[in-house]
């Protein structure tokens, strides 16, 4: 059994050590807001936060999480920057299909948590790992700036 803290809740899961956190969240715990996109850390749809740091859960073996707190999109609205990011995303109508947006929101809220006033190049660095096939990039950039001001 592997012990995890997910969204503030202690959990114990009976899964192989090498199982990526993504599939533990989705298929075992039942938190499906975190998405599968590529399986090789290229698209960012699976982004979650470990102690506030964004990580790609599709390549992260569950046994390596340890005592770090896992936060998923289902709970990011409980953090101040997560709440601001969600609101800005809705206010600027960032979202189209929405499938990548869980990961975008997790990356953006982690960025704002460590850098309340990100520059364009800060946004480039933090967000270039999150692909959006609908092409919502210009609005994502604008929404991060709006959330920073909120």
């Amino acid at each position: 059994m592997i012990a995890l803290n997910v969204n503030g809740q202690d959990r114990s899961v009976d899964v192989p050590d090498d199982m990526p956190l993504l599939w533990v969240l989705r298929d075992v715990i039942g938190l499906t807001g975190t998405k599968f996109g590529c399986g090789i850390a290229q698209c960012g749809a699976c982004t979650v936060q470990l102690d506030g740091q964004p990580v790609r859960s599709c390549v992260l073996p569950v046994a390596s999480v340890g005592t770090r707190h896992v936060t998923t999109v289902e709970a990011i609205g409980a953090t101040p920057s997560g709440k601001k990011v969600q609101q800005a995303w809705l206010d600027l109508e960032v979202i189209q299909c929405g499938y990548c947006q869980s990961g975008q929101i997790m990356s953006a809220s982690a960025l704002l948590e460590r850098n309340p006033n990100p520059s364009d190049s800060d946004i480039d660095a933090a967000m270039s790992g999150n692909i959006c096939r609908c092409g919502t990039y210009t609005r994502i950039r604008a929404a991060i700036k709006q959330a920073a001001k909120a």
Partner: protein
Amino acid sequence: MSKPFSSPNPKTNASRRAFLQGGGLLLGFAMLGAGIRPVVAATDPVEGDVSAAFAPDAFIRIGTDGKITFILPNIEMGQGTHTGEATLIAEELEVGLDQVSVVDAPPNDKLYATAALGGQATGGSTSMRATWESLRKAGATARMMLVSAAAAQWSVPVSECAAKLGVVTHQPTGRQLAYGALADAAGKQPVPTDIKLKDPRDFELIGKSLRRVDTSGKVNGAVVYGIDVRVPGMKVATVAACPVFGGTLADVDDKAARAIPGVRDIVRLPNAVAVIGDHFWAAKKGLAALDITWNDGANARLGSADIMAALKTASEHKTPIMARKEGDVEGKLKAASKTVEAAYELPFLAHAPMEPINCVVHVRADECEIWVGTQVPTQAQGWAAQVTGFPLDKIIVHNHLIGGGFGRRLVAESVGQAVAIAKQVSYPVKVIWTREEDIQHDLYRPAYYDRISAGLGPDGLPTVWIDHVAGGSVLGNYIPGGWPEDKLDDDAVESAVKPPYDLPVIQVDWVRQDPPVPITWWRGVGPTHNVFVVESFMDELAHAAGKDPVEYRRALTKNQPRAAGVLELVAEKSGWGSPMPAGSGRGIALHDAFGSFMAAVLEISVSPAGEITLHRAVVAVDCGIAINPNTVEAQIEGGLIFGLSAALYSGITFTNGRVDQSNFHDYRILRNNEAPKIEVYHVKSLESPGGIGETATVSAAPALANAIFAATGKRLRSLPFDRNQLRSDSADKTSVSMMPPLSVPVLAALAITGEADESEAEAA
């Protein structure tokens, strides 16, 4: 309301209408290797799954509790259709969007067909055009019945009553009744036949950027896409199909796979094998542990160069099918002061929607239940009926919000495969394709080889225009028995046949050369391919004539008012003609497709090493009445980026019958740091709405090609654009990276795991 919609748009091609009439089954079955002839079963009406006291038609339900539900004929995959269609009904029903909830229509071609597509389907930027009248009429009809019910209850003339925000008011007395209180009585009112729709000047919702109805659950993980469905007792499968199209499964040794904890079953199909596990990870590990032998079949030696060579040979030697011929083409060519000719090559493209292909299926003794996000729900139902042998009314389909379609989910062959897997076990199964399976077993946008030429008069303007298109028939994959040999597939020449220019002497023809791999529509369909050629070549002509590209197009749009309108607006807003730094350039593309007119200007720079940087895009659009201007702008921004991704990075190639690309590291998608700033400007119009979901995708490649020429003097006629051709001679010969950067979160994950798998190491 059981009649199919009448065709709302006379521009719609008659042949496309036929595309969904059962033919998708043929293609999919060919891929499954089952070799069964498709049977197009007549779909009996299936009742909508929403019941309410007032149900005047297929689209509107109002309960006595006041709950208003719209059953929408087209699915939501990000393009804003749910919001747009709800707006059309709400405008005439006199309710606010915040007062209604929306659901997807159940599979039913009779109630929910898009006439232009010949069935219940969402594609080709047809949704708003198809429903523009029908859904407003539905809203108006229901409102009139509610008002009549109120007037009857008060014993007053209908003319003294008015509806607003879900309430009917008797204006002289101020008495009010909410729609919920009228639901029972409204259902007993006669259905009016004389429906008067609002004058566009009185629109209160249409034309306003209302909040989208589908997004609140997309910021917190609440939305359930098909891939998120979990049903009791469900297991998870992943699948490998023969890596060579047309090949079959010869043998599989599953001993090692069965030893992996969590692996439950191994399922063999004629051309694929699936592993079912307690979770995706077990299934994926199990699949990797299989020792599979394939019969590669006839395509075992297939390579991309062979396909392009066959296209070229066909273009030059096969007799074409004429799409349009007007004027004395041969005579004008002889008399021309100058002739210009060029050949353009376009690659196969994968769709790569963010949500990988998936489907949850439970095959029971006498029925089959399916949860999936599909652009073609009745096709999905038909597939399941074929595979199970059950009648259509025993196939229950739950459609879900879609995490990206772009044409990939206009076919339901993967639903057939999932049902074939689920049929072999007793429990429900969720089949998820890996991204590798998605890239390597797509139905691709076909490759094309187009030869185009023009004769110029003394003023430099074209006196004759000849466009020879060569490529496969997409429609042919949807027609049982294939596309007739002598018949034009007008998808292949869409937007080539009638460019928005004064070109009185014109010949456009098509040579059909079907590739040995499956093909289908891809965002922007025919126009994405043809406008790249037409608009690149228009720039070539301007250059040959020594004219400015905008000035040249202006001279050719004197009788094309809507095209001229967007051209002038984009020239003004982009600052066309103002100086740019060395190594930079502006490119323009103008087109008319899906009932909308668009002109786009792209500003770029090209480094001495050949790196292309996208700085700014300015787009002018005339899409008729913009039902939701903000959604129009969002579709233009996203559509442009979709097209720029393809122009800069995308191309599917084959070696020994196998797709060379496998995931986002080698099938690149534009990233946030690479996206240009985008400005969108509307030409105000009271024309009926045009399509917008694909329009800007069409602009991307030609605007970029023309910008590259402006920046470098080099004309690139092959997609994706080869940066090696853009290197200046003095530049360092290090190769231009097609690889994405490794970002902070990836590094963080790798630091924790302490190891990088092969693909990340490659990407680094």
